[in-house]
């Protein structure tokens, strides 16, 4: 196995041994890749946003000698086509895509790993196909309840980051600020490219400024790239305005009984101000057999040292199951 040294928080960089595309609907064509050990334990990585796309660094949460690591870009983002499309783009389309990819790759069951929106999608997938999931590794928990959405876009985060919030709402005229998400949605779906881009930049900046415990210039640069921001902001806002396409806001909690048997680790940063610690606490209460790891010196990002170390430890623990 590839051992994680004490001062490492991620496994070494690796290249995929296989990548390809899967046509999942008339319109949507997804990018996927496999890395690590082709005979290893399968794991699928579910990225955040929605609309965030995958990154080569996402391969590094898994021991490449033990895991067959599957990454894919969800509809409309990363290298999937059509870029930034909102058509046929819902939670349940994505759940079906995860299942289609599993079948396409001839995988019987796999570990499901996801943070932030990736944790939402992981739980939605596991509740739909509980027999296909060997373990769940979840980070920066978000179950798409109203309370959680309001924390980030209204009541909570702004109290701790009022300076960043002022910049976020400055994009929207005062008479539209009563419903910020709707105001942003109008701009993000505008016919005017300049309007879309400006809204996408402000939307993404808000999130990236509050994603790490300490300001992270590298993350800010990445999140300012227009190729990233348009898909990220449009798709995220589309999901938010539609309440995550849940039948009711507590749907994912209501169905937790279907996944109690799945070994689960929950990793959450104490100072995650995007998805507050309370989200993880509530999920842990709903999954009493789960392991909860609270990282005292971290925010929301997957790549703060305490978080990535805890995630790697979880996948290492599950590697031989």
């Amino acid at each position, binding site marked *: 196995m590839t051992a994680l040294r004490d001062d490492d928080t991620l496994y070494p960089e690796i290249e995929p041994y296989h990548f390809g595309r899967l046509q999942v609907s008339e319109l949507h064509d997804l990018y996927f890749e496999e890395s690590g050990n082709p005979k290893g334990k399968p794991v699928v990585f579910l990225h955040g946003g929605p609309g965030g796309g995958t990154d080569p660094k996402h391969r590094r949460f898994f021991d490449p000698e033990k895991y067959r690591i599957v990454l894919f870009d969800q509809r409309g983002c990363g290298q999937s086509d059509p870029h930034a499309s909102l058509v046929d783009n819902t939670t349940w389309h994505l759940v079906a895509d995860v299942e289609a990819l599993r079948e396409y790759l001839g995988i019987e069951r796999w570990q499901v790993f996801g943070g932030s929106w990736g944790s939402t999608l992981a739980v939605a997938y596991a509740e739909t196909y509980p027999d296909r999931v060997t373990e769940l590794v979840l980070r920066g928990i978000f179950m798409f309840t109203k309370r959680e959405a309001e*924390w980030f876009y209204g*009541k*909570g985060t*702004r*109290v*701790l*980051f*009022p*300076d960043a919030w*002022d910049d976020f709402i400055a994009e929207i005229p005062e008479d539209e600020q009563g419903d910020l998400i709707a105001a942003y949605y109008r701009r993000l779906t505008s016919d005017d490219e300049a309007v879309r881009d400006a809204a996408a930049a402000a939307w993404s900046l808000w999130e990236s400024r509050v994603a790490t*415990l*300490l*300001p992270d210039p590298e993350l800010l640069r990445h999140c300012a790239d227009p190729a990233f921001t348009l898909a990220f902001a449009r798709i995220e806002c589309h999901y938010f305005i539609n309440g995550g396409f849940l039948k009711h806001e507590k749907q994912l909690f209501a169905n937790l009984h279907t996944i109690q048997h799945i070994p689960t680790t929950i990793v959450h940063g*104490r*100072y995650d*101000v995007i998805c*507050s*610690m*309370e989200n993880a*606490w*509530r999920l842990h209460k709903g999954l009493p057999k789960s392991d909860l790891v609270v990282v*005292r*010196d971290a925010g929301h990002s997957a790549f703060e040292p305490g978080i990535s170390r805890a995630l790697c430890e979880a996948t290492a623990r599950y590697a031989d199951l």
Partner: protein
Amino acid sequence: MLPSRRTLYPEIAPYDAGHLQVSEIHSIYYEQSGNPEGKPVVFLHGGPGGGCSPRHRCFFDPDKYRIILFDQRGCGRSTPHASLEENTTWDLIADIEALREHLDVDAWQVFGGSWGSTLALAYAAKHPFAVSQLVLRGIFTLRPQEVLWFYQEGASSIFPEAWEQFVAPIPMGERADLLTAYYIRLTSSDPEVRLEAARAWSTWELSTSHLFPSAEDIHQAASDDEFSLAFARIEAHYFMNQGFFASPWWIYDNIDNLRHIPAVIVQGRYDVVCPVQTAWDLHKAWPEAELRIVDDAGHSAFEPGIIHELVEATDRFADVL
């Protein structure tokens, strides 16, 4: 790498200490340390009800400052202990003036954090010519939304485990207004009931006051019954009475009285007791004051980045009249 940070000045003993009878029932403890010929500064502690400790002397250069600490009515070494009678913001402001006259000080620097910042602002608005500079930390202006954030909904999302302990002693039916529920118990005629409520109240605040709370600190402070009782009772008394201000925005409405006073506002980004929002609102109402947000700090005055900014501020002001 961060440039090295300033640390506290060495511990010193007072050269003078005494009690001042400020009303028929209240006698307050005060002390002077540092240089008797130095620049006078008065330290206003938090809570209300927190009292002073020897470490509070160490924010000031003892060669340059005449450092005056006192315990506000009902706490620390002031008597009667934990008394709520004749204990209001305006009584405390009168005490500060009485102490200034007693010590024959013309004008002094006023230094206060948390509730100490509330008191400093209200004092400066009432007696601007007695104040040479203001050094404020962990800003609190006692508006209803600030009290609700900490005692009803807000900080609860970031420290859900500690919050569970805080609400545990209160029956479900009373949890819609936790402040009132606690006040009833803290002013109960049964000393057991008072003490149990005081311990839980203080534990909640101590569990959330540092970026990295230590179980040891929390336990130590919460097991000091005398401290907890004064702290919890006096805090709840002030919060139930909206700080005895005529309106929730009293400080902002009177800000013009003190805008000419040189001031530094030091605020921890992850202060969940008095979140940045208040410092930001104050900054907008009073742009002349210098706002220093410390990225890696919570509420406590003793967080390394907070100490750095406070000592820098008092040093900068040390040679100014």
